[in-house]
């Protein structure tokens, strides 16, 4: 008798599974039908974790305005974003870097939408008394030539490098714009900016870099060549360690993707959401930078 009951339960579970699978299929079909109508349908935006909080909040607001549209935002990293949008698996691919800078991505078929700018600051342990570094001093520290803070006017303390992983967008932007593409010496590597901040705060002599949105006063920022890493200096083109947050589409966007990208560039997002989250609106930038790193006035 007991055996029979177990068997029944198993059969019911199987039946439920089959039924569920059936439902899933129906949903997909409905989504496809609705796409023909005005502003309804599903899109996915995949990629960079740096832009993810912004994209998620913007998507929530966007969906509140367009109840028939659905925007799903996922992380996964810039590489994943670019791969998926190139393959057509995602409608929008988010990236910290220009598609041209990533190996293995055919950038010619992708259209770039620069949503906002992320500034990056060199940060040090609060016990390090150095407030300013020249660009050469910074390069020497990160390439391992300078190994003690004494030689740049700080306390007698060994330098500890804290990096993001090699493939990280933050690291690529910092390397290109702050270090002039100099190869960094081996150092501690951490997966997330939050952990980098924690380690720099706690480890004597530590230096690393963080996006401005991660600064909370627990670590000390350092000026480069006398220019502080502030929003004003970045928009004016005086402080150059920053990168765009890109949303890529395959070809020109249409339908919901187009409407969502337009919403990201609207005053709602550019004037409110972006500054709130610690990014810099791309509409406020007085300069533009291209994939090769050339800078000119807008």
């Amino acid at each position, binding site marked *: 008798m007991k055996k029979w009951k177990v068997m029944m339960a198993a059969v019911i579970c199987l039946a439920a599974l089959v039924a569920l699978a059936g439902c899933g299929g129906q949903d997909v079909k409905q989504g496809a039908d609705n796409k023909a109508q005005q502003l309804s349908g599903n899109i996915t935006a995949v990629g960079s974790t740096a832009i993810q909080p912004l994209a998620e909040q913007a998507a929530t607001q966007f969906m509140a305005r367009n109840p028939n549209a659905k925007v799903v935002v996922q992380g996964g990293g810039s590489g994943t974003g670019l791969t998926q949008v190139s393959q057509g698996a995602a409608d929008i691919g988010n990236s910290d870097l220009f598609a041209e800078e990533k190996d293995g991505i055919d950038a010619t078929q992708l259209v770039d939408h620069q949503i906002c700018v992320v500034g990056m600051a060199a940060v040090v342990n609060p016990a390090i008394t150095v407030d300013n570094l020249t660009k050469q001093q910074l390069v020497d520290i990160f390439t391992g030539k300078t190994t003690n803070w004494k030689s740049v006017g700080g306390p007698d303390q060994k330098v500890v490098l804290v990096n993001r992983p090699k493939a990280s967008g933050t690291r690529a932007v910092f390397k290109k714009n702050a270090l002039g593409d100099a190869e960094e010496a081996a150092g501690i590597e*951490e997966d997330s900016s939050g952990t980098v901040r924690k380690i720099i705060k706690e480890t004597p002599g530590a230096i690393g870099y963080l996006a401005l949105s991660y600064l909370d006063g627990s670590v000390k920022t350092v000026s480069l060549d006398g220019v502080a890493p502030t929003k004003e200096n970045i928009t004016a083109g005086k402080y150059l360690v920053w990168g765009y947050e890109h949303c890529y589409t395959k070809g020109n966007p249409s339908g919901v993707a187009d409407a969502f990208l337009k919403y990201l560039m609207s005053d709602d997002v550019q004037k409110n959401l972006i500054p709130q989250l610690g990014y810099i609106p791309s509409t406020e930038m007085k300069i533009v930078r291209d994939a090769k790193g050339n800078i000119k006035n807008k």
Partner: protein
Amino acid sequence: MKKSFAAGAFSLNSELPGKILTTGAAFLAIISVITIVGFITVKGMSTFVVNGVSVKEFLFSTSWWPDRLPEDGGPQVGVLVFIFGSVVIAMLAVLFSAPLSIICAVFMTEIAPSWGQRFLQPSIELLAGIPSVVYGYIGLSLLVPFIRNSFGGLGFSILAGFLVLSIMILPTIVSVLTDSLRSLPREYKEAALALGSTRWQAIRLVLLPAARSGVITGIVLGLARAFGEALAVQMVIGNMRKMPMTILDPVITLTSAITMDMGNTPMGSLWNNALWSMGLFTLMMSCFFILVLRLTLRKGGVAR
């Protein structure tokens, strides 16, 4: 669906539904293993087949420069540093954890079966249930500063990594070993005691040798687990891509190198393929562990 089963040619009391269910589940398990292994193999081989990296260079070179331009001598994907890190950390963890586990298991089965079982067993099972991120976070918040302050260095070190790991693999070894000790025939112990050996002699000379296969199984499973663990280790070893010189130096393992770069590298690039090859290597390592296990068990310990 349900009805057709009940009203069909066979009733629920017959053998057929159970047979279908179990065979189906077995095939599902086999198919998922085959597809996963197949996928990783295809992806992992493309570093060598598509990108033309030699296996020798991949395994025995310490130059990891997947982002370097050809004019600077790149890209190079030598993973010896990662392999070294994984092997050293896993070995040290097992060396530390195995004696501890054997003693725990003996205590639980032979010395104090009643309260040992009541308190020690649940607490060790609890250790197995703690998520690895929690281990990592505790290691990062307590162990790393402790090592930095008492031994010097950065705190992020081989030492921190293998200490965290040895606690994590403790439950695996202990549970295999207690099962094997408990399954020994009572006569072994009784005969040893009747021959005049002390309890210590009976444990050391009769029971543990008899449970040898359990000891080996536990250790190999612990080693496999230690080799594959990514998250907790990654949080405390500092992930420095450089050969460590002392036990207080930061180090990087295969698994943490994979997790750190996988999301940011585009599919199909050499960099991404190299990560898959590293995955393939870890898979081959665990196959190797399982093989070792099978062979030693076939040669046979006693009474298993």
